[in-house]
């Protein structure tokens, strides 16, 4: 694989600006090779849907500005879309179990919730933080705005709070144990 393609992979994966220095570090090559490959990449991205954006020493990939109005329209549409039943259900679990892990949500729902959580977070309904107990995991919390929208100051004020919050924790734990025991 060419160096320029490797750079493209990294930029695409990260999705945020990254310095030339950092790229050189990750790819274990010199600054000159990075600069040369970035020039090549810029050329091969000409007339394509993705463009290379540079700001001082930081590089990132973005969409071609020629199509920006369509992308903006798409973004608006997505943000204002009606929430699906699956999204509302996921949201309710986050609302009741303040600081729930993704795997707990998944065990309760029986399906993987990563795309849904991503969309809820973009809409400012949930917030994602690194789990203080395990830095390789994330936990989710309802945002202050979401709680206010429902007219409560904290999750404890939600109807049937203690029953539901307790059940979510217990059931997720039980399902996890059963799955582990079966060595799946």
């Amino acid at each position: 694989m060419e160096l320029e393609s490797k750079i493209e992979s990294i930029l695409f994966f990260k999705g945020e600006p990254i310095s030339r220095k950092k790229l050189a570090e990750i790819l274990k090559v010199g600054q000159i090779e990075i600069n040369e490959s970035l020039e090549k990449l810029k050329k091969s991205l000409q007339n394509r849907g993705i463009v290379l954006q540079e700001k001082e020493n930081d590089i990132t990939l973005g969409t071609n500005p020629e199509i920006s109005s369509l992308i903006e329209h798409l973004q608006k549409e997505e943000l204002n879309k009606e929430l699906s039943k699956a999204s509302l259900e996921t949201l309710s679990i986050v609302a009741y179990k303040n600081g729930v892990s993704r795997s707990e949500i998944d065990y309760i729902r029986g399906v993987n919730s990563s795309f849904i959580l991503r969309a809820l977070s973009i809409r400012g309904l949930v917030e994602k933080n690194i789990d203080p107990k395990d830095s390789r995991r994330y936990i989710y919390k309802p945002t202050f705005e979401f709680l206010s929208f429902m007219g409560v100051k904290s999750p404890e004020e939600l109807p049937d709070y203690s029953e539901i919050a307790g059940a979510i924790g217990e059931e997720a734990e039980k399902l996890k144990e059963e799955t582990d025991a079966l060595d799946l």
Partner: protein
Amino acid sequence: MQRDVAENAYKVKTAGFEGPFGLLLNLIEERKLFINEISLSQVTEDFLNYLKNLGNLKPSEISSFVFVAATLILIKSKSLLPNLNLTDEEEGDIRNLEDRLKLYELYVQLGQNIKNNFGKNIIWAPLERKNEVLVFLPDDQITKESMMTFAHEALNRIPKKVFLPEVEVKKVVSIEEMIDRLVERIKNTLRFNFKDFAGKADTKEERIVVIVGFLAMLELARQGMVNVLQDNNFDDITIEKQEIILENS
């Protein structure tokens, strides 16, 4: 020896989840055989021995093992009794087991492809993009009450028990129980008829019981504990305790 015990314990523990085909395929592969009637008849005894240790399984799981056992017994009987005439349905059951086992074997082999490649060269989806602008875009469907309803619904949908069977399966007699019953009958009676012992064979479950009984009987005959008599094809079979026959002759 120690290793065997540990291995058997493992097999018994996992067999319930892997099912009768996993066990059967293992036994055939251990002997480096191909799937056919001959190899199936050779592993019947081993299969039945494992079955004896599966007492902890739920009836619904046992039934799938007993169903396979019944067909194996049929295959074994066919090889032990060349004159045995099988019905079309029984021949069909044998072919069906062979076909299903081959199909299962195909997917187990394909599973090796997955095992060999899984997680080796991953195609990564992009990371979540950071929110540049902080937005808050709720939806009118969100209320305290609707959140409560959605949470309750999600909790109610959780399967109550891991192995809760979809259809209630009638409890089916295990091979071990059947052998015990057969031994018990022989103790109490000098001669008795197989039909009386095994009962009628109208429903599928009853047929399984009859077949299981038949296999158990053949097994005892092989071990020399009983003598089995059948005057003509399709006549009832008479079972006698071996010592009685010896004493009489």
